[in-house]
């Protein structure tokens, strides 16, 4: 009996500890039976969207599309643009017209021609407000796109022309020097006109109809478990592919992901800081500064957050290094909104190297500001609610920030952990006092961050109204001189954060990945600061 009880206790502890997240990363049976086939197994968070480039996208989509869909052009590691599906492209003098010439031999994996209409297909479907794509607004630089999305213009007026099957012409509403950067976004990927008619439809999970123009094609798809991608002989640069297959398996939880990597179940595992000690100095460990910014939104419509003194006090009254110590050793404090390690295509320098900090932490000054605003020592400050999704890093940050405000400023904040989707919908509905926010650059340009908080932006969830910032952004958007444009963007960020303290930058996070040392020839994707594995090789 005693032994039995011991066993039960152990079992119970094990269940609690590992939370039995539905991990299902069995090695493909093909991999062992066909020993001559070379492939890699990639761990991913489970799919929370679809595989339709015009639809709801998730991390899973990004991993999938990196292997299966080939953009017109793509940013190379050295900052130049690689033409992939396009042969060449022309830009007019004032950067308002872009013409892409698609390669004659660009084909889908079933052998049919990959045409300009396939690219147009995704764009048109993404302009339906019901598509669920988070990237629709990236199309708004195209003439009439925003009007079509809002239902005030007809789809036929869209500023995209397909004069023939291999020519795609974009007419923009204003100069856009970073337009080619956008080409790797989902909304600019092709989707086959013949099959991809229904947005988020069944076609995108069916190997028969989910066609690929990229290095691999979808061979097998099991929902919530895995998808198997095989080498696409019709790919325009098929000679660069060395792998025979790529398998993407779903693993819900980071600790399970790391365990799966250790047991050899997967070859590539997105991990977190808990592996830094164990894998220190080993070739498996790959650390890249991420271009993800974590910051805290303050709702300008909620008193007393409408007072710039209060916002400044909250901003400089935090010791960010202490927050980072609790949030994990893969985080680094930041006083910028734009991610510190976003590389400028103009100077080749990181964002942080080009400018002084936007503010300095100073608890005494914060206390003084708070007193000036009418809350000496935090007395009388209303109990605001801090909403955040119940994920580890967000929970850690929220608890650390709350404790610091309490200790440094005497302010009591109530924490409210929410289910992820609930948090997003509350934020989008502007129903919060204080809310955590995270932004990962979608393309390597500071615009991806800064345009979110102009007064008229759909992403401006915290009711920021800052005419000086709007003005600087408008100037930057029409300026075609890269140096001047970057200077204006730096200035705009300074006004937004350093002067108006519109929200509170907290930290940047690193991307930590465990990669099987047998895998070689993978390169940094500078548009997302992650790795590209499509041309990876496998040594014996």
């Amino acid at each position, binding site marked *: 009996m005693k032994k039995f*009880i011991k066993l039960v*206790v152990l079992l*119970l*502890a094990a269940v*609690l*500890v590992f*939370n039995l997240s539905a991990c299902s990363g069995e090695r493909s049976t093909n991999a062992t039976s066909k020993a001559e086939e070379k492939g890699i197994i990639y761990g991913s968070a489970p799919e929370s969207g679809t595989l339709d480039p015009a639809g709801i996208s998730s991390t899973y989509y990004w991993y999938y599309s990196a292997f299966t869909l080939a953009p017109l052009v793509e940013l190379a590691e050295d900052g130049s643009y690689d033409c992939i599906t396009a042969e060449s492209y022309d830009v007019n003098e004032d950067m308002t017209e872009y013409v892409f010439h698609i390669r004659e031999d660009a084909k889908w994996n079933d052998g049919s021609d990959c045409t300009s209409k396939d690219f147009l297909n995704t764009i048109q479907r993404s302009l339906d407000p019901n598509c669920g794509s988070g990237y629709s607004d990236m199309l708004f630089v195209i003439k009439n796109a925003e009007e079509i999305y809002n239902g005030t213009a007809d789809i036929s007026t869209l500023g995209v022309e397909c004069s023939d099957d291999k020519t795609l012409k974009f007419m923009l509403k204003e100069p856009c020097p970073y337009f080619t950067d956008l080409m790797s976004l989902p909304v600019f990927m092709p989707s086959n006109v013949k099959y991809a008619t229904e947005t988020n439809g069944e076609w995108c999970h069916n190997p028969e109809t989910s066609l690929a123009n990229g290095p691999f094609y979808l061979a097998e798809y099991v929902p919530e478990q895995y998808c198997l991608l095989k080498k696409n002989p019709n790919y325009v640069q098929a000679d660069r592919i060395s792998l025979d297959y790529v398998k993407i398996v779903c693993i819900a939880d*980071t*600790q399970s992901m*790391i365990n799966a990597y250790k047991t050899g179940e997967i070859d590539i595992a997105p991990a*977190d800081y*808990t*592996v830094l*000690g*164990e894998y220190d100095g080993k070739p498996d460990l790959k650390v890249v500064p991420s271009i993800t910014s974590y910051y805290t939104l303050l709702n300008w419509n909620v008193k007393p957050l409408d007072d710039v003194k209060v916002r400044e006090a909250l901003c400089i009254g935090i*010791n960010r290094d*202490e927050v980072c*110590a*609790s949030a994990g050793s893969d985080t680094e404090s930041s006083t910028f909104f734009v991610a510190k390690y976003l590389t400028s295509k103009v100077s080749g320098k990181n964002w942080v190297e080009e400018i002084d900090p936007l503010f300095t932490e100073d608890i005494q000054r914060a206390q003084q500001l708070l007193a000036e605003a009418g809350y000496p020592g935090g007395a009388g400050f209303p109990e605001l609610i801090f909403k955040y999704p*119940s*994920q*580890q890093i967000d*929970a*850690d940050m*929220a*608890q*650390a920030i*709350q*404790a*610091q405000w*309490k*200790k440094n400023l005497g302010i009591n904040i*109530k*924490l*409210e*952990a929410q*289910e992820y989707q*609930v948090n997003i919908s509350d934020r989008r509905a502007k129903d919060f006092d204080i809310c955590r926010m995270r932004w990962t650059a979608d393309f390597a340009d500071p615009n991806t961050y800064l345009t979110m908080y102009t007064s008229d932006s759909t992403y401006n969830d915290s009711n920021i109204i800052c005419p000086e910032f709007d003005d600087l952004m408008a100037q930057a958007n029409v300026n075609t001189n890269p140096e001047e444009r970057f200077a204006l963007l730096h200035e705009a960020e300074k006004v937004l954060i350093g002067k108006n303290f519109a929200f509170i930058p907290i930290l940047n996070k690193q991307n930590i990945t465990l990669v099987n040392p047998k895998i070689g020839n993978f390169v940094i994707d500078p548009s997302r600061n992650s790795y590209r594995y499509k041309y990876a090789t496998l040594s014996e």
Partner: protein
Amino acid sequence: MDDTAEKLKSDWFLPIDPSEKNDEFIAVESKSFLSEAWGRFKKNKRAVFGLIVVIFFILLAVFGPLISKFTYDEQNADVLNVLPNPTYWLGTDKFGRDIFTRLCYGARISLFVGFVSALINLIIGVVYGGISGYVGGKTDMIMMRTVDIIYAVPSMLYVILIMLVLGANVKSILIGICIPGWIGMARQVRGQIISLKEQEFALAALVLGASSRRILFKHLTINAIGPIIVQLTFLVPQAIFTEAFLSFVGVGISAPMASWGSMAQDSRQLITMYPIQLLWPTLAICLTIFSLNFLGEGIGDALNPKNR
């Protein structure tokens, strides 16, 4: 008559020996039902162990925070993730908070949720099941089908939905646990009442003119007390586990308040680096739940008249 009297002769009867005078006396002290049950309970080692552990955790919950020098939310960046030492008896977590203090507050929440929800379930379950069983007929039919409907929805769903509406706090966890929690109790009580109400003592009470309420609560329910208490002792660990689970998945007690579940969740990520941080809350949860189950089993055996 007279003949018979004559037949009884005086020599038939003899005075007994004085030594046998006290043979009719009951030498064993007469015992009440409860003291007899206590006697049986004491012999059950597992049950006594359970009782001791539960009392230990109750003491910890009540007095632990008083003897600790720290508060549950006091962060200290200088002492992140330290191991157990004389200052921090169980070490600190990644915010530099004292784990012992947090464990005590966790015990408060767990035991509070456990006992209060059991009490609420007891009251609702006994009244509902009692009425349903005693009245019977159509009323019973309707009341029990209502129970079936409530029971058809997974209990976790109620909890999560209520948390969404009322926010993450002890109150909504309690409501969430109690909505489906009383059903087992109600069914148990109904079954007991149905069999008891057919017995003679119930009939006697009825004949003597006792009101229905008096018969139900003074006669029938009292006689079903054994199974009710056993059911009650199993409700407590169930509620504690639900609370720990909810806090573990991040929708329970709101931070920075400590709960065993949220402590386990916070330290889970660090399992490879500081496994000891995960050990404490899991140990507390396991010990409490096992002890309460042992205790329940022990009480059930002790109260069962067949074990006499």
